[in-house]
């Protein structure tokens, strides 16, 4: 099983949804690993082997009940300021061409696929950046190389969520577009029934299935995104336990709100 959660923007909720789905599978007894090909972040978590990975993947691993490893986030891009970036591949600072980065990412993905029944991937930023499309690794790159079906996550709080869904679908290269299977509306407040027609329209226009809304919730996952304000990393088993507990309660809320996790399972198995 494999699936990738793509965001229509940064902070759309990819990290959380990925964690929720990891938790869902893990509670069902499926062995699952999170994966994010590359991460642009200032925060990192140090694995037992001493490798730096994105904090998001560490949380996702915990809620999956597995030990975080470097394969879950093989490429770490560390902004140095002034536009310069450190590329850390498999724990080592490297200067390698674009294709090589994708190759390394695929290698890590393959190792996880062998070891686990499900690999739940998280994209990076928006997959529809016109100025970056040809260099994309974490979104289109992985979808194309490993035929990973995708679910779009859009943030409705700022408005324009339907435009973001449709626009992302339109801008994704045609060869991978059929892999876009579903969409989730995150940070929704109020009565979901008011979305009715709009949701149907997006389904009709794109062929993607509506998977549900996730209500506005105070998330206790420190967002790993470089844009978000995070102070201090996770510490100790108590912290880990708190995350797992929080993931469980989020999962329950999301299910109550009608998030169709079975549908995601179908997509992951397709």
């Amino acid at each position, binding site marked *: 099983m494999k699936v990738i959660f793509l965001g*229509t923007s940064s902070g759309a909720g990819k990290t959380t949804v990925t964690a929720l789905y990891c938790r869902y599978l893990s509670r069902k007894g499926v062995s699952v690993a999170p994966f994010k090909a590359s991460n642009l972040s200032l925060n990192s978590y140090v694995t037992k082997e001493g490798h730096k990975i994105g904090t998001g993947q560490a949380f996702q691993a915990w809620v999956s009940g597995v030990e975080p490893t470097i394969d879950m986030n093989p490429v770490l891009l560390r902004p140095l300021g002034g536009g310069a970036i450190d590329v850390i591949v498999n724990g080592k600072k490297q200067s390698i061409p674009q294709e090589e980065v994708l190759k390394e990412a695929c290698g890590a993905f393959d190792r996880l696929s062998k070891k686990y029944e499900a690999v739940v991937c998280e994209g990076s930023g928006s997959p529809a950046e016109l100025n970056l499309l040809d260099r994309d690794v974490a979104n289109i790159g992985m979808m194309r190389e490993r035929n990973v079906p995708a679910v779009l996550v859009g943030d409705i709080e700022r*408005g324009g969520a339907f*435009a973001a869904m449709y626009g992302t679908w339109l801008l994704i290269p045609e060869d991978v577009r059929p892999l876009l299977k579903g969409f989730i509306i995150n940070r929704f407040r109020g009565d979901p029934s008011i979305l009715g027609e709009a949701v149907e329209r997006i389904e009709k226009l794109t062929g993607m299935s509506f998977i549900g809304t996730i209500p506005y919730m105070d998330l206790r996952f420190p967002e790993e995104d470089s844009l978000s304000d995070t102070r201090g990393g996770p510490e100790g088993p108590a912290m880990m336990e708190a995350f797992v507990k929080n993931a469980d309660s989020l999962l329950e809320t999301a299910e109550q709100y009608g998030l169709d996790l079975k549908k995601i399972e179908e997509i992951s198995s397709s």
Partner: protein
Amino acid sequence: MDNITKKVKEEIERGWIGPDKSCPYHPCHFTGQDCTFCYCPFYPCHDEDLGQILRSKRGSDVWDCSYCLFIHRQETGKFVMSEIKRMGITEPKDPRMKSILTEAKARYFRKGRSMMVLGATSDAGKSIAVVAICRILHKRGYLVSPFKSQNMSLNSKVTRRGFEVAMIQTIQSKAAGLRNPDQYMNPILLKPKGDTISQVIVEGEPYGDFNVKDYYGKFVTGPGAEIVERNIEFLKKRYDAVVMEGAGSPAEINIYDKDIANIGAAKIADAPCILIVNVEWGGAFAYAVGTVKLIPEEDRGRIKGIILNNIRGDISRMAPGAKELEKILGIPVLGMVPHIGLELPLEDSETLRGMKSKGTGSMVISVVRLPRIANFTDLDPLFMEDTTVKFITEPEELEGTGAIVIPGTKNTVNDLMWMKEKGLDKAIKDLKGKVPILGICGGYQMMGLALEDPNGIEGPRGTVDGLGLFDNITRWNENNKKTIQDEGVFIRTGEPVTGYEVHMGDTEIREEPLFRIERFTGDETEGSFREKEMLFGTYIHGVLEKPSFRRFFLSFVKGGEGILSTSPPKDYDDLIEENIEKLASAFESNMDMEELMKILEGER
């Protein structure tokens, strides 16, 4: 009437003067106004383009042209005076005056153009783009007005006539060089009362409470469109350009037909539109493409340009994407605007959500983050000083604070109960006399002995104990809302204070006052003050904007005086002006202005 005739006669004798910078009220309408005719020589012209008949309180009809700017245009003033002189007119009642007005109108009166800034999301930069465009057009000699048909915000201001208008439109009107914002610039103001209910203010006055369903089902489909239309028309008759701002995204397809805030308003005004997208969050191209493509084909053509906003780092790296976007949509990218560090008011409570503190200065000011906090732009001037402003919800967070501010609220009684549940009431009372405490509006009401609401206007019927910091009693006797501008002095220093009041409930004051307010009916005192205990309370929103009171209050913070002495006091108004200029020049230098002007003039 005779008095006016006499004044006009004097004006005629004096001749053309242009802007009168020696007048203490200058500019009373707009920067660059012509002051030749402070009193209009055509009054009462009874021209419906310029004024309207009003029923006075005594029941008689009065010709009201107080919103007319025509005679204050330099070209009009100059022309009218030269005609008067040419014809040798000396008396205002000369019958030939009428023909001068007709000729002046034929030459210089034209209905204004409009353009609209749409955003792909909230916070895309619509408001600031309108600020920038207003200022750019103003500098190019346009008489310009901002407009937002429907604004949802808890930050409103009061106009000189006592009408409520959203705060951001007041800043935009300042950018347009206008002295006074008016309710026409934001005819529908929604003030959220909870997640689903809003108080609807129409043309500056309370209209009713609506939930989301009724707002769209009854208000918008009922009077909504007509309200938008008459206000746009009103502004078009008075201004050369009406720069309109959309609300949220124009592509919310579930409410598209009922949306009078975006394309709906643009259609009413026949305005070309520009779409602005915030690049910072990523996905900007998708947002742009999706927004345009979800707008029905027959309306899509209104979108004449796109602005990519808030780009951090190297702008040129966006260029290939922008080119591609133009190719896909067939709409030019008018500008790529960098991130601009601004000090402008926080627009809505969305910006406050999750904000724990702002600034890293020496003086720690704790603001009680009331659940129904309102008019929190009151706090903005604090950010100009060497402060750390913390938004607190728990008593423990008050530890080590240098001062406390209890801000305004949409519901005083409920928020007071919330403070009691949290134990914040006790924590604040414990700090009495130890740190300065300032209550503004609802926060001021809370500071009193009791809050009496026998008819259940604000909350449940009955009396609630206040914090007891002052001996005041606030009563809600009738559903009467007070909205008024205040101008006066801070009694202690004799220096100016300006602001406005928006509140229900009246306070019986049993304390030394803070301010003396000038009114037509004579001076009034306002506020409460106990110097020894460092207690301050006032109804005046914007009370911290002028440096005098702000600095006085902060001087009570431990070590405050020393900290303050290292920087000269600054008027918040000047800061806003600096930021408007900064914005306008950033937009102007990163936008294809020629194309923008063509769009405005309907040549695209």
